[in-house]
């Protein structure tokens, strides 16, 4: 169990960050600023060249334009260099100091627990002895009790001192983090009134999406000004109501689309636009960030979030990208059609790993932090709706890390993993998942799914080698074909959420985990509607898959099969 500080409620967790890397980047920004400054001086010199001919006049004009324009990039590079270095310095002096105290606090906490137990025992012994013991024994027992109480008080004092230091360092880091964000925001966008700037600073400094929501709702007169000045921030800030985010992000997407972007970004924009114009009902673009990560990140909400009694969040896995969000939209619509009061979000909010990155946890860690914030935002804005997270492949690794990051499961009621690449093996995460009040977990693995098995067995150091289907507390459900009444349900033919997905290995016949008509998808619908899967594992209509051969690869460090 994670300890929290007594006065400020800070969690006793290591604050992530690499000040050496930050300083290197700060230096890189400074070098860019310097070379741009030299370039500006040189280009400016060209405006002094003699001559009155048309060509030289044109060249001088162009040189003046370039020299003037360079000022903006120089200022931005200097700003980034300064902000990052100041944050790096603050991180070194505060966050790293807080991190260094963690072991001491845990030891002091254990020492206090032990000393308290000893003091209680000595006190009881003194009380018992006072009733029936000899005077000498009574004195000795009293002395021992006093010594034990003194030791306990000293241990409590030591712990309190350490907590005080920790809170001081943590608070200094918190302030530096907020200052860095505010400085970056202040260096971009049009000028705002001081009231609007103050609101933006407070929004950026808010520690939780709940605090963001409260601040936003408390200042309706400033909302439009802040949103117009910083649509990229407000459109993605968890805690801001989704109708606001949807309107802002649609305008941002339209503006970007008007520039005819090419390459992967062009594909992403086209896919999002196609979804946004597919209706009615039209989905809401509740997150959209083409630059924050290596991939474009986005989230589309299908159905009416405001009136929904159940909100589902779909999380994609390895090699997913926004360009493929259309088929996830199909799943979302099909899920919503399963019953009344359903809304579903396709959350593409992280850099999904490729095959080389998949064995590691880096993508999951970044993704989990983003998903955690998103889920907390969802819970803040729509607290009464039940929430289900349906995660595929490495998305389930990421989602498990997020949902298991707190004992309360972030307000998630149902966590459904399909074709999981394995849950994180972190004992704290697993403990949170298994003990969270109100959280029910479900998992399925198709007997045809190759990549999920490979993913579990090739994670570095077994970092995500935990098999969800056999994890205590998880309800396993079928995905190998079955029947719903008279309706035949297809098996899932490989690893794909929507298509085969085993490539370059062969896939079987059937439908992906999240395709209407598959046993997997039927069970997901039933879980959301009733809390239980709709079919029996290996029931009528179930097929044997290639990867279920019992003797398959027994040398693997983790048994990737159902037991």
């Amino acid at each position, binding site marked *: 169990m994670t300890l929290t500080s007594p006065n400020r409620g800070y969690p006793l967790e290591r604050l992530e960050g690499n000040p050496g890397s930050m300083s290197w980047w700060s230096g890189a920004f400074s070098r860019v600023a310097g070379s741009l400054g030299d370039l500006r001086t040189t280009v400016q010199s060209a405006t002094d060249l003699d001559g009155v001919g048309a060509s030289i006049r044109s060249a001088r004009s162009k040189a003046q334009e370039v020299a003037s324009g360079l000022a903006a990039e120089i200022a931005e590079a200097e700003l980034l260099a300064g902000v990052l270095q100041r944050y790096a310095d603050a991180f070194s002096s505060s966050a790293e100091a807080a991190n260094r105290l963690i072991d001491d606090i845990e030891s002091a906490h254990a020492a206090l627990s032990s000393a308290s137990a000893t003091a209680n025992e000595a006190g009881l012994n003194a009380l018992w002895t006072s009733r029936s013991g000899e005077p000498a024994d009574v004195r000795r027992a009293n002395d021992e009790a006093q010594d034990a109480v003194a030791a306990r008080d000293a241990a409590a004092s030591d712990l309190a001192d350490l907590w005080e230091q920790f809170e001081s360092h943590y608070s200094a880091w918190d302030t530096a983090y907020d200052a860095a964000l505010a400085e970056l925001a202040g260096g971009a966008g049009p000028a705002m009134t001081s009231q609007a700037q103050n609101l933006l600073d407070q929004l950026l400094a808010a520690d939780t999406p709940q605090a963001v929501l409260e601040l936003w709702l408390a200042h309706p007169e400033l909302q439009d000004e802040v949103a117009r000045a910083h649509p990229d921030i407000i459109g*993605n800030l968890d805690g801001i109501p989704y109708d606001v985010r949807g309107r802002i992000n649609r305008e941002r997407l339209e503006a970007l689309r008007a520039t005819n972007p090419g390459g992967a970004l062009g594909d992403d924009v086209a896919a999002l636009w196609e979804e946004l114009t597919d209706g009615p009902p039209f989905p809401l673009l509740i997150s959209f*960030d083409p630059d924050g990560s290596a991939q474009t990140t986005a989230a589309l909400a299908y159905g009416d979030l405001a009136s929904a009694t159940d909100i589902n969040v779909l999380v994609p896995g390895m090699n997913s990208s926004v360009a493929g969000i259309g088929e996830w939209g199909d799943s979302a619509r099909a899920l919503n059609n399963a019953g009344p009061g359903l809304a579903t979000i396709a959350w593409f909010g992280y850099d999904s790993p490729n095959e080389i990155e998949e064995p590691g946890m880096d993508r999951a860690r970044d993704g989990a932090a983003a998903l955690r914030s998103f889920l907390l935002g969802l819970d803040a804005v729509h607290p009464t709706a039940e929430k289900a997270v349906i995660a595929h492949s490495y998305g389930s690794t990421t989602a498990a890390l997020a949902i298991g990051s707190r004992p309360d499961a972030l307000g998630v009621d149902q966590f459904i993993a399909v074709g999981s690449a394995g849950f994180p093996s972190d004992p704290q995460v697993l403990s949170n998942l298994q003990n969270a009040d109100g959280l029910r977990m479900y998992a399925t693995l198709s007997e045809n799914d190759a990549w999920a098995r490979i993913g579990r067995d090739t994670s570095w150091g077994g970092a995500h080698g935990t098999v969800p289907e056999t994890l205590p507390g998880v309800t396993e459900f079928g995905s190998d074909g079955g029947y719903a009444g008279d309706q035949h349900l297809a098996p899932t033919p490989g690893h794909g959420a929507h298509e085969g997905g085993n490539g370059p290995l062969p896939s079987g016949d059937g439908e992906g985990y999240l395709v209407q008509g598959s046993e997997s998808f039927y069970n997901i619908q039933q879980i959301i509607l009733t809390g239980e899967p709709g079919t029996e594992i290996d029931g009528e209509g179930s097929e044997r898959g290639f990867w279920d051969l019992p003797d398959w690869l027994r040398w693997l460090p983790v048994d990737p099969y159902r037991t």
Partner: protein
Amino acid sequence: MSDVEIYYHALTSAADAIQTRVSSAVMDNADIQGDDTGVENPAHRVALRLEMNRRLSGLNRAVLERTTAASEVGALLTAIATRYSDLDVELTGQEQP
């Protein structure tokens, strides 16, 4: 050295200087690509990491555009100098007999 020769050297020197500075800026700009500035996700917070990535991506793109424009200035000057026979016209604005 004639005025035209002096002018020729002024143009080529300016063009060379610009291209040298452009090369330096492009080299330095190549360093600011990627998505790991060391900020990470302290206390599960992602805002600063993402904002820093957005800004460095934007700066990288802007510098690319600006250095391309600067390089075009150098190319314009080089093109003028290359038309050596026209330098009198460029310098004086008058056709020579």
